[in-house]
């Protein structure tokens, strides 16, 4: 398969970026999107050109490191997968593919397609943890937790913190990420203890870092590679408002 790639190239955080066009030829349909970029980079290196910088790590959809905006979709055209799980058979032979970095003021471009997602780490540091002693695994397993609660907590915990939610949201809101973290802990007895403090601290940090206000479009849920539901945003709203009313 042959493709025309329009890729955002930006030397560093302070330089002005632009799209550059590349041709990739004889790509197997079973090649992953990131492998296709590897092939392109190999060609560029052989030509003495600067390879395209992009984030990746596990390449099996669990680390949340890959972060490409492909033809208008965060993580490409498929639903509920990360960029590394996209294969070239999902594109048409001869198609033009536009590849952009996450666009959000809180995720500044470092180079080419690599953005700084440290803002999410800062939000986590503000409250995405539990301080209570939970002892070892057998002790944790001895705490009775309703199956429905455990399932909801696990669904929220599936968030890999890739940033697709804020990158997709027209408001640059990080609500889905914050909601998933708050929700996964709020549904468990170990996390419940600090529920109010956590919701307030994480929302305050999210606001401080310049993320936008959620307007409930649901675009984040549609593009989330882990299909995190906006029902967790409703829970975050409840947690936060109840905590504020108790102040």
């Amino acid at each position, binding site marked *: 398969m042959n493709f025309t790639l*329009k890729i955002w190239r930006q030397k560093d955080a302070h330089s002005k*970026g632009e*799209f550059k066009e590349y041709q990739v030829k004889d790509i197997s349909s079973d090649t992953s999107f990131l492998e296709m970029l590897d092939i392109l980079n190999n060609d560029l290196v052989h030509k003495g050109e600067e390879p395209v910088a992009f984030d990746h790590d596990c390449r099996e959809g669990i680390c949340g490191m890959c972060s490409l*905006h492909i*033809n*208008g*979709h965060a993580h490409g055209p498929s*639903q509920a997968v990360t960029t590394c799980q996209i294969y070239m058979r999902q594109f048409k032979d001869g198609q033009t593919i*536009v590849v*952009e970095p996450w*666009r*959000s*003021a*809180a995720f500044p471009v470092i180079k080419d397609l690599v953005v700084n997602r440290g803002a999410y780490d800062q939000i986590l540091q503000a409250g995405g943890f539990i301080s209570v002693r939970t002892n070892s695994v057998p002790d944790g397993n001895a705490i009775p937790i309703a199956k429905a609660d455990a399932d909801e907590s696990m669904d929220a915990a599936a968030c890999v913190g890739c940033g697709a939610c804020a990158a*997709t949201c*027209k*408001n*640059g*809101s990080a609500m889905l990420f914050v909601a998933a973290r708050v929700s996964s802990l709020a549904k468990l007895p170990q996390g419940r203890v600090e529920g109010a403090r956590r919701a307030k601290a994480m*929302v*305050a940090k*999210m*606001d401080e870092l*310049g*993320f*936008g*206000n*959620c*307007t*409930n*479009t*649901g*675009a984040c*849920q*549609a*593009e989330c590679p882990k299909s995190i*539901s*906006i*029902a967790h*945003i*409703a*829970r*975050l*709203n*409840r*947690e*936060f*408002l109840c905590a*504020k009313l108790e*102040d």
Partner: protein
Amino acid sequence: MGCFLTNSSLGRKLVMSISGCFLLLFITFHMAMNLVAIFSADAYNWICEMLGANWYALVGTAVLAGGVLVHFAYAFWLTWQNRKARGNVRYAVTVTEKGVSWASKNMLLLGVIVFLGLAMHLSHFWAKMQLVELMGGHEVVLTDGSVVAPTDGAAIIQYTFSQWYNVVLYLVWFAALWLHLTHGVWSMLQTVGWANDKWYPRLKCLSGIVATLIFGGFAIVVVWFYVQSLCGGCPCCA
């Protein structure tokens, strides 16, 4: 408390939700009131008289204007913050994500259309009714030269909707309101945390029903009086 309603994104959204709920309750009342005009001009005028230049109507008008201003000011404030959060460089390729409504992404635009429609509506009715009464006037001269009392709301309705362009403008206004409410109603409940996966289909269905009832209730009055004007007061419409 006061601070959290201004300096927290969730607090600001709460203000939008509560002010939106207040405006929804008001337009529901207004729609029900308008329907009375179809059945009895006297009953409608009795309501107009009750809502004329008296202290409770003025307090109500002031509170309502406050609600509109808060909702509108917060909408612009939130949008300005959101645009800033989005950054200066926009995506070259954008798509509509699966399951995302056009209305949900264009609430400000729809709100501006609703606001402009409101200004038109106030010039057609409020400026000829409560305002005239407040200024001490006892009669209103309509653009065709006819004179009516400021409490004769039924006559002003009849005159306004006998003109086709007003009918078109009002229907466009109501359509924008319909779209605004299809997202606004369930979004209002989501913002206060009253939603979950089981309830989303129900809440979105409820939003559609509420928006359609309000649109229908307002539109039927406009269309009714326009059709009546075409009939020229034939016995079936009298």
